[in-house]
Every structure is written in C-alpha cells, then in structure tokens.
C-alpha cells in the first residue's frame, strides 16, 4: 500500500455500536461507570449472569428494559457485555441471552432497583462464602 493511501474505515461491530449508542454514555466504554453516580458493571456482570434471578435483573434494570433496542438487540448487547466488560473470566457454562428470555423478563418493571441489586450480589457472595 502506498504510504499516502487513505486508511479504510473500519465499521464498529453492530452489537458494540448498540452498546455505544445506548449504554456507553453512562456506563462508559469499559463499563466502569462513575463512582457514586453510575454503578460499574465490571465486577457484577459475571456474578449476575450466572443464575436466572441475576439475568432477570440485568434485563429488567431500567437502562436495559427501557432502551429503544429490540428484544434480540438487547439480548445481544447483554451477552456482549458479559463477554467483553466483565473483569471475571466468562464461566464455561455461560449461555448467551436470547430474545425469548429478554421478552419474558422485560415487560414487568423492576421497581426497587438498588435493593434488588444489593440483595442479588449479597446472595452470590454468601454462596461463594459457604
């Protein structure tokens, strides 16, 4: 290639582009958020995505459930987040979110967001501690 030739424009993968356009404004590019204002997802994604209660929370949390993404797009973004933003290794038995799973959880609102999150993370810590 000649040194002055223009570099080709590389498109952002569509799932990552959906994360950027719908989540990154608050959660930042690496999911770390802003201390005291936007919770980091980096340490909680791996824990919450392991069981159905945690996965239900991840779908129902307002930023996810109320996003303009379709059920399939939201499922893809959540799976991408678990695989790319979590500080923990993705468990070998992790299964991607599906559109049907998202549809099943998304329509019922999560009223008490903070307490639900704290309860789920505490329960996970208890399981690890036992």
């Amino acid at each position, binding site marked *: 290639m000649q040194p002055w030739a*223009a570099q080709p424009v590389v498109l952002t993968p569509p799932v990552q582009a959906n994360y950027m356009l719908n989540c990154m404004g608050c959660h930042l590019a690496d999911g770390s958020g802003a201390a005291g204002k936007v919770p980091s997802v980096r340490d909680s994604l791996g824990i919450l995505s392991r069981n159905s209660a945690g996965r239900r929370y991840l779908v129902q949390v307002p930023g996810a459930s109320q996003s303009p993404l379709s059920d399939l797009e939201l499922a893809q973004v959540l799976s991408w987040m678990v695989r790319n933003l979590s500080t923990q290794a993705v468990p070998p038995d992790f299964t991607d979110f599906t559109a049907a799973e998202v549809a099943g959880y998304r329509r019922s609102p999560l009223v008490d967001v903070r307490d639900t999150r704290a309860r789920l993370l505490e329960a996970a810590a208890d399981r690890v501690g036992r």
Partner: protein
Amino acid sequence: MPDTPSPIDALVERMARDMARRVSRRGFIGRVGALLFSTAGLPLLPVARGGQPGPAQPDAATDPGDPQTCEYWRHCATDGFLCSCCGGSVHSCPPGTEFSAVTWVGTCHNPGDGHDYIISYNDCCGESECGRCLCSRHEDDKPLYVPFKANDYNWCPGSKVGGAYHCTVARIVGVAK
C-alpha cells in the same frame, strides 16, 4: 553648556555603569531564554483531553468543514459552546477544564466519506461558560424524558469538578455504518 554634568546626569551615569558591571549580557539572554522555554512548556502541563480520539478517524481528505463552525458535520447534535473555539479542540477540553465522562452518544453523517460516525458529546467542566461559538443542532436527539438520548442536559454534574459548564466536544468513538 557647562562642562561639568548635572547631578542627575552624574547619578544616572553612575547607576548605569554599576549595572553594566554587575549584569552580563549573557546572563540577561539566558534569563530571557529560560522565560521563553518555560512559556513554551506550559501547554505540556496536564490537560484533560477527553480520552483518546476514537480509532476510526476520517482522513483529512474526507473530513470536510471547519471544526470551529456549528455547520461542521461532527456537530450535528451539539448543544453548547464549541470547545474548538474555546482553547480546546473537537475532541479535547481546553486547559483548566475537566472532561465529563458521563454524557450522551449519537451518530453524525460525514458527507466526506458517506459513513455515519458514532459521536460522544462530552462537556468540559470546572470553568464558567466559554461564550464563543454557541451551537444548537438537534439531529436525532430526544426529549428530556429520554435522558441518554437528550442533548439539553448539562452533563457537568457527573464530572469530578462539579456543575460549571464551559464547552462541548464531539469525539468520534466508532463507525455505525
């Protein structure tokens, strides 16, 4: 004219000769050089640059327009003062201001290469309003009740330095299509 100088002339002459003995021209030049060098070093002091520009920057030939105008394509949904007119650039904050990481993200169409770039509109905070190049465009922004798609917010309360708003950058973070 009398041959003997006036007392004032004599005093000034004595002072000038004293100074010439004490101060070398080389020392003076050295001090001027040090002053110039330190002034040149000032822009190297820590400046909030708003993170690195995205990996997918359009090349100069396909980046039409003037970043100091509201009509520039990256400002398609900017609501505020352009940092490129305020001592910063289209992707970096002016010295003395702090980047607000939390913000909203949208897309702008680049007529130069036909791609839709993903743009992060971050506010630069900690100083009062810049007041130059006010820009108010609203392509694809949403009402206030859709906060992560609304450009009417002041995002500085989410920054580390509090709520004083100075200007807004338009950083490319990706390419949507």
